[in-house]
């Protein structure tokens, strides 16, 4: 369903991504890992439609990906994903209101009752039915992310994009969230792209793992080369040595980038 052909992303002279070629089938669960600043988030934003590519092609069902966010691609950010002025239930119901054409996105009468029922079913599915009248500021970080996921799913997207969704959560809660995401992915037959900092999370969660890393380094001109996908693995049957190797290379790149920031 998704295809990238010789995709490049540059900011002025700085190359972020180079020579990305890939094909993704419907229903895959892909995790994107890599050092900070390696372009994995940039790639996710291109899928989302908030970043444009510099050259090459990024095709969804053979058509270029639209240059603005749309209902076929849902998103959960690390934070600020939910609307602070709506209760939990209103947040999820808003997804139904936004699906219908109209000036205000408010629902009335039968449409409102139906949206309410659907929203409650979705809240039950993510375990938030008892919190439906609370405001996001009253929720814990994990509950807020559950809400963001419920909201995104009620929009019935084909693709779900997750931008370090569990980065700010405690390890125990993170494990719960992993189970939830895996279950929803299977039940709703989604194609998932998830950016994560945590290599273990990437190995454990997905069906496929992409490692974004620089293959070429020029110490004199650190921005001359961009990152590309150095590993494209079907996860589940990878041995420990590969994990170590990727872990090492990503850490190395991270150190290089850190040094760079110190110098600048």
């Amino acid at each position, binding site marked *: 369903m998704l295809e990238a052909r010789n995709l490049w992303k540059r900011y002025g002279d700085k190359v972020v991504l180079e020579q990305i070629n890939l094909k993704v089938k419907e229903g895959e669960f892909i995790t994107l890992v890599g050092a900070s600043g390696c372009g994995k988030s940039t790639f996710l934003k291109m899928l*989302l439609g*908030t970043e444009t590519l510099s050259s090459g092609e990024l095709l969804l069902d053979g058509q270029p990906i639209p240059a*603005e*966010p*749309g*209902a076929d*691609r*849902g*998103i959960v*950010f690390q*934070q*600020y*994903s*939910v*609307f*602070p*002025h*709506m*209760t939990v239930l209103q947040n999820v119901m*808003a*997804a139904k*209101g*936004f*699906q219908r*054409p*109209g*000036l*205000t*996105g*408010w629902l009335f009468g039968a449409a409102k009752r139906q949206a309410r029922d659907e929203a409650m079913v979705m809240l039950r599915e993510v375990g938030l039915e008892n919190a439906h009248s609370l*405001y*996001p*500021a*009253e929720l814990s970080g994990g509950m807020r992310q559950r809400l*963001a996921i419920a*909201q*995104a799913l*009620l*929009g019935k*997207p084909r693709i779900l994009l997750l931008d370090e969704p569990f980065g700010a959560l405690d390890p125990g809660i993170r494990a719960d969230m992993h189970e939830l995401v895996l279950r929803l992915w299977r039940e709703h037959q989604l194609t998932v792209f998830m950016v994560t900092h945590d290599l273990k999370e990437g190995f454990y969660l997905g069906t496929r793992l992409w490692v974004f890393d620089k293959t070429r380094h020029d110490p004199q001109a650190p921005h001359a080369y961009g990152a590309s996908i150095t590993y494209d693995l079907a996860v589940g049957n990878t041995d420990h040595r590969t994990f170590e190797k990727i872990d090492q290379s990503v850490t190395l790149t991270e150190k290089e980038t850190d040094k760079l920031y110190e110098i600048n």
Partner: protein
Amino acid sequence: MKRLINQTPTPGLRLALGILPFVLLLLVYLLASDARLAENPNDKLLPSFSQIGDAIQRMAFEPNRRTGEYQLWADTASSLTRLGLGVLLAASLGLILGLSTGALPMVSALTSPLLTVVSLIPPLAILPILFIVFGLGEPAKVALIALGITPFIARDLQRRTLEIPMEQLVKAQTLGANTSQIICRVLLPQLLPRLIDSVRLSLGAGWLFLIAAEAIAATDGLGYRIFLVRRYMSMDVILPYVAWITLLAFMIDAALAGLSRRLFPWQNKGGH
């Protein structure tokens, strides 16, 4: 002994400390007033409390011999009507301008430079123009208040709109929302409490413009009265009027703060 920066007053002490300056001011006034009146019983500069009380009785609770109106209340009604209309106009205009320039880059490109220039014009400098255009009646005074604070509210709300995290706008789009739905359901509700904040901050300027306009051309109003009795050095009227204006300003501010808390419960729940 703790460092001074770590010493905090207990609630009782805090209250006592807060009241102390008021008591001291009052005491100083009393002593000075007594001293002056002892020397010259006809002195008008620092009237005694009984003289001020007489003036309040005369202005607020006895009908004016010529017009039959209760002066203080009639003045209050005219002034509050002007202030209310001006602020209402400014709030509506400011909300529309701030929201549209904050949400729509095209509108921002069109109007932001103009808004910046207009906000730099001292409103009192164009008061004569307003009098020429609108005449000396009510519209000129309302227009002065509106013109004076609209740019502030508009620019404040524009900044507030831009502060709303991009993530929320992207999220709404991924749920299928169009531009007007995003404005109505994501931006506008989050801006309303900020509009109230903005109005609270601009009310000080609103009073300034109101009193200035009334001082120059009016036949009633709190500002008009103060400037009128100044000719007779009637400090016994001016002082209670100033206190009354201060009290009104305080009550309006408190009412708006209460309204904001009541209408938008989501903003004070928990911490972000």
